[in-house]
């Protein structure tokens, strides 16, 4: 059973988004890491990269497959969790602790399109 944290938002492409003021902290959901299995590589964007909601900003690689990371919001990358370069398995260990990027939001209306915990739960149980 995948863990679903309350109080954060989710994208239908399985990223989680935690809002702190004008900054979105983004990772992948526990469901996503479970589906992928052992994660061996995280392809990260760079600080200063501009993200467009709905577009790919990096990728997770498991032994078997590669899965694009899709920006749940638009904005500018202000911090990257570079520790994941050496320890990609952190995503498997705790998908909520292993944040991937922090983004300064350019358009807060993007948040309206995200799912709350209950709606995300319904999505993955479908």
């Amino acid at each position, binding site marked *: 059973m995948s863990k679903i944290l309350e109080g954060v938002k989710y994208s239908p492409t399985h990223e989680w988004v935690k809002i702190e003021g004008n900054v979105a902290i983004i990772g992948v959901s526990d469901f996503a890491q479970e589906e992928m299995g052992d994660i061996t590589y995280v*392809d990260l964007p760079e600080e200063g990269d501009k993200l467009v909601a709905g577009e790919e900003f990096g990728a997770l690689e498991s032994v078997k497959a590669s899965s694009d990371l899709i920006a749940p919001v638009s904005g500018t990358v202000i911090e990257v969790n570079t520790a994941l370069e050496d320890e990609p398995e952190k995503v498997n260990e705790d998908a909520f602790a292993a944040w991937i990027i922090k983004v300064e939001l350019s358009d807060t209306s993007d948040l309206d399109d995200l799912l709350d915990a209950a709606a995300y739960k319904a999505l993955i149980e479908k």
Partner: protein
Amino acid sequence: MKTCLYDEHVALGAKISPFAGFDMPIQYSSIVEEHNAVRNNVGMFDVSHMGEVFVEGPQAEEFVNYIFTNEIRGFEAGKVLYGMMCYPAGGTVDDLLVYREFQKDHFLLVINAANIDKDFDWILLHSRAFDCKVFNASDKWGQIALQGPSAEDKLIEVLGYGEEAKSLGFYTFCDVLYNGNRLILSRTGYTGEDGFELYGTPEDIVEIWKKFIAAGVTPCGLGCRDTLRFEAGLPLYGDELSPEISPVMAGLGMFCKYEKDFIGKEALLEQKAGNIGRKLVGIEIEDKAIPRAGYPVETADGKEVGIVTTGYHSISLDKSICFALVDKEYSALDTPLSIRIRKKVFPGKVVKKRFYQTNYKK
């Protein structure tokens, strides 16, 4: 379709996906754990989906030698030989194992699950010119691959057959009785480690599987079967061999013997002489990004010269490596080649295809 072991996979909580028309276990715990169990201890695979075709009759040897690239004349009963069946133009029908049985003029051909129908049609068609009979017995046999450095000890601990097992060298087999039925003990595998492949009746194979599970053998899915065979430099039909990819292109020329007549011989000889477009190589890149099948291979100046066929971040070697088909002028060892992975280009070079030092019993 389901193999005889399907219910066991479900009971063990395997992740199951369709493969070659069968619902097969991809992994039980994790690909990495299962992979390491085989490299360091012992793991087992359900390979009951593989096909078994028997060929018998006065001209069985002559016939098998005509459709098979390797040389079976002079090879004794109890031995196993790897090779391919080819189309006249050199492309590959399948890669397979040929067992020379202990009964005179009897052979067992073990073929890939995805190709059973196609292969059997091919075999049947060509057998008509020879005095022999062919049978597709694929659904009458179950098969387990027990693989890893502790495979021999575990086999003897659980099933006995100590004398038989110890006497088998790599690529030999013997027949034993289990519940009064024939059980083939074959010292073969697809992992780069020592191990056995056991062929028996579906009922016996289920019973043997349960005994191995009870004795602590790690069940392993197709996920790590692919990572293991890849590291050991072994091709997978569909990726490194196909109707478009001949054994010579795939670097498997050592399994083609030209002192005899066989289907595809002239085309393969021509390719061997240099008339060949692409060759299969190993490439290692200097990064942890993973080259996947279908990604383009480029020269330093951005010219596309090939395509990745299988790639992983190798579990046993901690390197990002792949097999790729590249234009032959770029196939020499140490040739600098890059892989385009998503938007980035990762430099690397041509390396030997056997990435991992195999540990077969001599």
